[in-house]
């Protein structure tokens, strides 16, 4: 009965377009009132506990770093480097947009930030060169989704926070899957561009590549600071996020000189607000999770789930299906918080490492960022491209198909995720 009230209230509130965080909070409130055993002070305690966390500090800090990099002239240099790297291919600009997004993914932890930063430059130039707007937006959204797989990654930080798995390990595990996804997306976009006769932008020149690489050296220094610092044992993931923020501040103000002190408040405020949208969901969802825990709901759902099969391969497939469906309708953070406790309960029956499970979960949810009705990358890129999300669906479909193939590889071939964590003897 409790389960029914909790989930049906949540569903109704979602459908009438309540903000997700408030819908989760209100559904929890209604359930607490129904149960009647518990003081409403619990709402306050759990809201606070949800955000009172050292690992979660990395969420706003990576947002700050990403925003400072974008405004400090990093994105334009990264785009230039990507042009010199892959601009000679058929459909050069589409490949450029994916490669730029992959580079930017090494700085930002958020797919939406990634799509916005790179898309703001590349979607208009693709449209200017005769790319169909829906296609331009779809390519950029798909590229942006690598933002949460190539480290750093906010969903991985949240997964680590929920399960206690090492965020550093999760980051390391995302490197190869991120490259796989990026390369397969380039392949698909190149084939589609060739079919539509979208041409190259310039021919390859080693001299230009070297020049742009030199120009982008400070930009590329950011992923070095972030990953090198974590893997080299200099700091924790949260500390690396603070280091990245201060690095971005220094580069923008003193090296590129494209950042002025006057704009700082605005940049920080916008990044704080974007983070708060995520953090407020985490806060209200921790009231929700507390109710689930005290009523033992994840345990019971997991037990029912395990009666479906005892074959780890089939269970993994079912989990992928469940996560993909969740990703279609739910916002990433909410999906993570609602489903991770259940997954942790079934983990022993899956025969996979928790780190690999983390990458599987995040990949599924990254695919969800590309599907309406709630696909954050699609929302951002359709805004820039000036077309409706519905009109982009058939354009995004080929990319979704190749992402599903990648997902299967990530799910059933553990070395891909575990190579780096194992190599580093983490």
């Amino acid at each position, binding site marked *: 009965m409790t389960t029914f009230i909790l989930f049906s209230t949540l569903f109704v509130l979602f459908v009438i377009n309540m903000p997700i965080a408030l819908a989760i909070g209100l559904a929890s409130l209604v359930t607490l009132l129904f149960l009647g*055993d*518990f*003081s409403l*002070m*619990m709402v306050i*305690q*759990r809201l606070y*506990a949800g955000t009172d966390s*050292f690992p979660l500090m990395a969420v706003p800090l990576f947002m700050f770093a990403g925003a400072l990099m974008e405004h400090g002239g990093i994105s334009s240099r990264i785009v230039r480097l990507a042009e010199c790297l892959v601009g000679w291919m058929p459909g050069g600009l589409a490949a450029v947009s994916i490669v730029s997004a992959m580079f930017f993914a090494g700085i930002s932890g958020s797919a939406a930030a990634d799509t916005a930063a790179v898309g703001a430059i590349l979607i208009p130039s693709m449209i200017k060169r005769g790319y169909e707007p829906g296609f331009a937006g779809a390519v950029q959204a798909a590229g942006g989704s690598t933002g949460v797989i190539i480290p750093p990654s906010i969903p991985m930080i949240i997964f680590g926070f929920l399960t*206690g798995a*090492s965020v*550093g*390990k999760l980051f390391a595990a995302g490197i190869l899957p991120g490259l796989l996804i990026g390369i397969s997306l380039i392949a698909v976009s190149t084939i589609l561009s060739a079919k539509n006769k979208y041409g190259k932008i310039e021919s390859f020149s080693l001299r230009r590549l070297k020049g742009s690489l030199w120009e982008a050296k400070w930009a590329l220094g950011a992923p070095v600071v972030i990953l090198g610092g*974590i893997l*080299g*044992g*200099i*700091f*924790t993931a949260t500390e690396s996020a603070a280091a990245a923020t201060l690095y971005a501040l220094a580069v923008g103000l003193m090296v590129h000189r494209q950042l002025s002190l006057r704009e700082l408040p605005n940049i920080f405020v916008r990044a704080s607000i974007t983070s708060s949208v995520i953090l407020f969901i985490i806060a209200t969802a921790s009231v929700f999770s*507390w109710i689930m*825990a*005290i009523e*033992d709901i994840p345990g019971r759902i997991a037990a029912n789930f395990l009666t479906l099969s005892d074959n780890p391969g089939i269970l993994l497939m079912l989990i992928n299906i469940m996560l993909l469906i969740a990703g279609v309708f739910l916002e990433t953070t909410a999906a993570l918080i609602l489903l991770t406790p259940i997954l942790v309960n079934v983990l022993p029956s899956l025969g996979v490492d928790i780190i690999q499970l983390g990458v599987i979960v995040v990949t599924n949810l990254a695919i969800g960022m590309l599907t309406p009705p709630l696909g954050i990358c699609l929302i951002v890129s359709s805004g820039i491209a000036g077309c409706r999300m519905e009109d982009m669906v058939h354009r995004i479909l080929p990319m979704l198909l190749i992402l599903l193939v990648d997902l299967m590889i990530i799910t059933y071939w553990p070395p891909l995720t575990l190579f780096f964590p194992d190599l580093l*003897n*983490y």
Partner: protein
Amino acid sequence: KTTIRLGLVTIPGSAQNICAEKFKELLEARSDDYEVKIHHSASLGSETEILQQIQMNTVQMGIITDGPFDVFLPEVRVINYPFLFGSYRQVDEVLDGPVGQELLQRLEKVGFKGLAFSENGFRHLTNNKRPVHTVDDVSGLKIRVMESVLHKELWRMLGANPTPMGWPIYTELQQGTIDGQENPLSVIWTYKLSEVQKYLALTGHVYSAHIDVANLQWFEGLPGKDQDLIRQCMIEAARYQRAWNRDNEAAFLDGLKQAGMQVDEQPDLAAFRSKVANIRQLEIYQGPATRQLLQKFLEAAGQ
């Protein structure tokens, strides 16, 4: 049937869980009126938050490390007074004796019914830099400590660089973000810290207990015979758990040695003690109630 919700933060197999499961088994075997529901692995929140939930009667009982009680009743910290107890026999004498019972009694002021003490045990130092025999070997080590003024000051006095950090710390130890940590053998063993720590010194610098508590109002609202039954079951569970911990320590130590840890079983503790002799002067021990109880504890422990 009345459901008793019992909260703890550790994973199955840990010291707290042994005590909780024994309590459930005893109570459910002896009475048909109660069902004990154990919420473990911090699914309800941190230890401080579970204590608040017990105060709200959202959760009825808890098996909680002594540290977090500090916030509610400062004098609980006397249990953690460095080098207070010389042996487990002495621990039992003091905690099961009148001063231990007085401490449990005092918890009633803040809404808890103190039922019994179970334990984590004596805390020992591990690190990755060098063997620790004398106190000088501690100098400059980056030691992870719990977020507690006592532990910070203790390690500062011993010459280390105490670094407060949440748990777990496996990755940080392996990466070398910190050099060492301090915990009872059961924790070092359960969390496989031998994989990332080379040296262990049996410093036993602080004894760490759990206090097994219930919501006072809820408890006093129960029929008298049920109160006695619950109390009796918890006392037996705590005794069982303490015996379990002590029986297993030798095995944990052997296991850690076999995993390659270099163990100093008899570090020069006199030097450690003299370095922290002034810890009584710390502000945290200056409250009148704390000072008075500390005096009683020191006397009971023969110091």
